[in-house]
């Protein structure tokens, strides 16, 4: 099997039961992606597959053969942070940090959904051509990523400052 992970070609021969999450963490040493529940309930394992956010714990590695996967390690480095990573630090959008990689990937995936006009449960006008990322939309769309430290105010501020209309991502 082959994947493109953070721009790098990777291949491995694996037990078909290995999840995409465990491929990243246990076989490739990319432990930035976190295992919080292993059943798709917490969002800590969120990664981007061809730009779309998924729970990597609910994905088998074999299902994603040939796909391009971006993890938190692919967003930026400690020397060159992605603007959203910088904003999470400035707005203190985390405490323990365990949900943070998932929050970051989820927010970037969410921005793509907004751009594509994908509605959410709080979108008032489903027929509208464009969706504005207001705070209600932001909170709703980020609700699949649990933060037990309760850093939601900071997360909203960081995402708003980086990805809301008029902000360059």
């Amino acid at each position, binding site marked *: 099997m082959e994947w493109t992970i953070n721009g790098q070609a990777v291949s491995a021969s694996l037990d078909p039961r290995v999840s995409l999450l465990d491929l990243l963490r246990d076989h490739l040493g990319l432990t930035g992606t976190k295992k919080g*529940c292993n059943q798709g309930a917490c969002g800590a394992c969120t990664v981007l597959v061809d730009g779309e956010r998924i729970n990597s714990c609910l994905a088998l590695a074999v299902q994603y053969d040939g796909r391009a996967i971006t993890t938190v390690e692919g967003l930026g480095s400690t020397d060159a942070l992605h603007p959203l990573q910088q904003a999470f630090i400035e707005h203190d959008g985390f405490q*323990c940090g365990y949900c943070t990689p998932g929050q970051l990937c989820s927010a970037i995936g969410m921005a793509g959904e907004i751009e594509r006009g994908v509605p959410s449960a709080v979108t008032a006008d489903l027929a509208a051509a464009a969706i504005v990322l207001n705070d209600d939309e932001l909170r709703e769309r980020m609700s699949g990523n649990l933060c037990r430290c309760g850093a939601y105010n900071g997360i909203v501020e960081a995402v708003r400052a980086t990805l809301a209309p008029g902000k360059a991502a």
Partner: protein
Amino acid sequence: MYVGQPIDRIDGRHKVTGAALYAAEFPQPDLVHAVLVQSTVAAGEITGFDQSAAAGMPGVLAIITPDNAPKLNTDKKAQQTVTAPLLQDRSVLYNGQHVAVVVADTFERATAAGATLRVQYRAGEAVTDMHAALSQAYPPKRFRNGERSPDSTRGDPDGAFNGAALKVEATYETPTEHHNPMEPHATIARWDGDRLTVWTATQAISGAQRTLATMFGIDPEQVLVICPFVGGGFGCKGNTWPPATLAAMASRVVGRPVKLVVTRQQMFTSNGYRPATVQRIRLGADADGRLVSVRHDGITQMSQPALGEFAEPVALATEMLYACPNAAITHRLVGVHAGLPTYMRAPGEASGVFAIESAMDELAVAAKLDPIELRLRNYAEADPSNGKPFASKPLRDCYARGADAFGWAKRDPAPRSMRDGRVLIGCGMATTTYPTNRSQAEAKVRLNADGSAIVQTGSQDLGTGTYTVLAQVAADALGLPLHRVRVELGDSRLPPAPGSGGSQTAASVASAVLAASEAARAEAIHLAIADRGAAWGGADPGSFDFRDGIISGPPGRVGLSDVLGRHGVRQIQQSATTSPGDAKKTHSLHSFGAHFAEVRVDPDFGTIRVSRWVGAFDCGKLLNAKTAESQLKGGIVFGIGMALLEETRTDPETGRITNANIAEYLVPVNADVPDIRTIVVDSADPVTTPLGIKGIGELPTVGVAAAIANAVYHATGVRVRRLPIRLEDVLMA
């Protein structure tokens, strides 16, 4: 000055890039994987294991059961820790108890084999619901480690209640709740001969070191515990729970490094919980609302005594919160077939203050008083339980500033009087308090010739900002830029520091770091004076400054690197151990605050949304305004979950937890949380710590559930006395 400033976390870059390593993430050559197998009955005895299928599965290295598990030293006198279930006998005391450990070469193979292992039981009679056994409540044997009685009485509370003009008598209930930190418990264990290394998720590396040493009959020096980052704890990583010990046991059995990560489902039966409570409150007051009698009888759930004892101290806040000459509190336990409960964010206060602050709201209604006015009429100037003065208590400021920021005076106090269209709006408030705790701690500071410093202490950062605030304290004391200070935590080779619980880390460890930094600074000045010989002879060290590596004073200036270079020394090294001293003997040490909540209740669907929040707190001097605000807000979010969402449910037939996952055990999500406003009143506490710190972690969670219940009453006219508040509570009334 860095102390107090809203400085970005110094470990932030590691956390946002995925570079921060948590317990399960340390690579080990030859690593194998262990999984826990848990009981499916709530009581009885294991009669046998059918290993025939599991043992032959590919990659399986060991199946450890009570029949072949190495014997551990679980003598309870040896330590205050969790000594069961550790596969030491065949008894089953609750559903979900560890009964076997399966080790295989991969996680998938271990999981598959674990699922194939068959366990046979002789099921016994189980008590699974504390409410069915309240009549068998018993007093705790070692309440607060035996330091005080579970009961206390002052004056004549029953006589005063009988004669009171106003009476409130009600029972409040809270459910079992689980911490659910985002990082599950995880341990990697490796033996090198008779030396054990564990990378484990813990709030107390010192406790883990002691516990594992005792269990395996080795010296603490033979156990190395490493835990640089913790993915949240909230109390459930305070004790060294069996999975860490079982990982070490499994590693010894197979002779290879073993990783054991507790699954989210297993987190519900592996590391404690906040026990369910039934609390009876009786308040008596005169016609003006002045309390004449307070009584708080708390009954809390316990496991079977063989697992240990944990008594949730629900009534302790009631003892000290309001001035009242007649008061009584009691604590009782009800044993059921469940795991051992433990501390969970604000243990005691979170549950108990829901009861007393709901009852005070009921008394305000009965007295026709504003709830704040009622509290001011009963304001305790000194601790009424012992007469000691409070080290500091600017609670009046918290009420006033919180009420002002919230617009409390603008509300119509009549229930069901405020609407926005069809939605009912309610406002509620409650007091919060939590003891100020501090323990002995040691820190070491190394001041290098190149103008950098290393701060070392065996504490841990649960996400509270320990790395950052210690760097701030040291940078100020050493006159260095923040980025020149490196902080090392989470390694048992570092100087000993207490566990991170009871909101004590900053008060304990920052005090030690301050003392060690000041000692290093003093030595730098002393060396410089000595170095200059007769030229600076007799100079007063107190007249010197030390900043950016330069020692300067009336006789002149010299660089530390020059001084050290001339003496062939590369660094100054100073350690300091600080202790709480006598503050607790002379003063009552507490933090305080006031919560103001607005809720919006849909009258047709019963849905309750928190729409506004103001919290005003006295938590002493802040070390970092940014991380402190996050901790305060996070504590409020934790309380919102307690008020409206969180409940662990148990099937009464089997004793099995039916929502043992984080989809059906509801915690607040982003959309449940409004913009929260926090206010910190200026209240440096000079008694408790030299830095004026009181501690933050638990305080903001306490009182949140009462403020919400009181707001729901104001919105709907329905008094809900059982958590979590459900939509049917407001619809069915």
